[in-house]
């Protein structure tokens, strides 16, 4: 086919353009709603939520996960768009990490060492490892589906960003149920769960987001 003929072919394709940003917004909204409903309909919010919300450990847990979800969502919205710089967006990911590190440091300074192990292991570690990925499923599938309209230079990294963002959102939602509040618990099990989903996203991205 000659290039001129290809041009004619391309301009004859009048299928409506689907803006990446709009598709990601739809995926984000649906993913958040579905995950929140699944959490509420199955395990439910913690019964003492109203009281717990003013407990510093709970505030830290919700803040870290919300900050991670927000900063990684910004990354997801930028990474599929060629020519859009990512430097500041990537640096913003350090904010939730720094906040978590600070919370861990404070926890270690206020908690007697013989309580560290119990706080780290918590009560629901395995369920946390299971349920954060479950809650991540719909947001991750949605982000990957939307990202196929994008043109990420590194498909694996774009998939990882989708996974990290989906899992952070899921972790934020799960935090409203989770009875384990110690930053030591969050640093361990939340991070492992989010890491697993991030790796899944990276593997999926390498396959699905190539162009």
């Amino acid at each position, binding site marked *: *086919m*000659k*290039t*001129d*003929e*290809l*041009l*004619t*072919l*391309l*301009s*004859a*394709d*009048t*299928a*409506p*353009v*689907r*803006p*990446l*940003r709009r*598709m990601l917004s739809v995926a984000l909204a649906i993913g958040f709603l579905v995950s929140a409903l699944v959490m509420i309909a199955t395990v439910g919010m913690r019964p003492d939520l109203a009281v717990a919300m003013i407990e510093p450990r709970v505030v830290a847990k919700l803040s870290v996960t919300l900050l991670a979800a927000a900063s990684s969502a910004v990354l997801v919205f930028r990474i*599929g*768009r*060629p*020519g*859009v710089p990512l430097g500041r967006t990537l640096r913003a990911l350090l904010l939730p990490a720094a906040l978590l590190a600070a919370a861990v440091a404070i926890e270690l300074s206020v908690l007697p060492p013989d309580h560290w192990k119990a706080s780290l292991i918590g009560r629901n570690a395995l369920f946390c490892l299971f349920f954060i990925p479950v809650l991540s499923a719909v947001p991750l599938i949605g982000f990957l589906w939307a990202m196929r*309209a*994008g*043109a990420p*230079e590194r498909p694996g990294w774009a998939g990882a960003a989708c996974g990290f963002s989906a899992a952070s959102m899921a972790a934020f939602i799960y935090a409203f149920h989770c009875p384990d509040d110690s930053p030591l618990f969050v640093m361990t099990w939340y991070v492992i769960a989010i890491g697993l989903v991030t790796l899944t996203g990276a593997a999926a991205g390498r396959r699905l987001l*190539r*162009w």
Partner: protein
Amino acid sequence: MVSRDREAQWAEWMRAGIRGDSQAYHRFLADVTPYLRAAARRGCARASVPVSEAEDVVQDVLIALHLKRGSWDPARPLGPWLQVILRHKLIDAFRRRGRTASVAIDDFAELIAAPQDEAIDDRRDAMRLLRQLKEGQQEIVRSISLEGQDVRETAQRLNMTEGAVRVALHRALKTLARLYHGGQNENG
């Protein structure tokens, strides 16, 4: 030379194209192609890849920027977006040839448009690519690209609705994109 004005003009045509103005869109594609070609040839020359490969890259880039134009934010300049797509496709082409050359893309503003050169271009075996499309898609692609009929004429001749022709055309372009980046060697 691509002046800033020209890049702004491209962006204007592109925006109109996204709104559904296919004439403006065709003008954009036709006007940008010689610059893509110049950049692709220079990229090939730097990586010691035969310049005859450049036209394949140009076609690959054109399909990519068509299918991925939803990833361009109309509020942002078009040049950086084009450069990244071109670089991505050059790297892809070199990798398929076993090269891992780093690719530096010049600012489009530094390039001189390159016309098509019949002697070295269009070496891709178009028929081989087209044959990998489904039969109905092949017919539509041939009708529009080689025979120059529009969607309505094609629909009438093939006794299809215009909508069905449009859908088949869009699918065919997605398949072609996969074939261009070496998809025929993969499962599916």
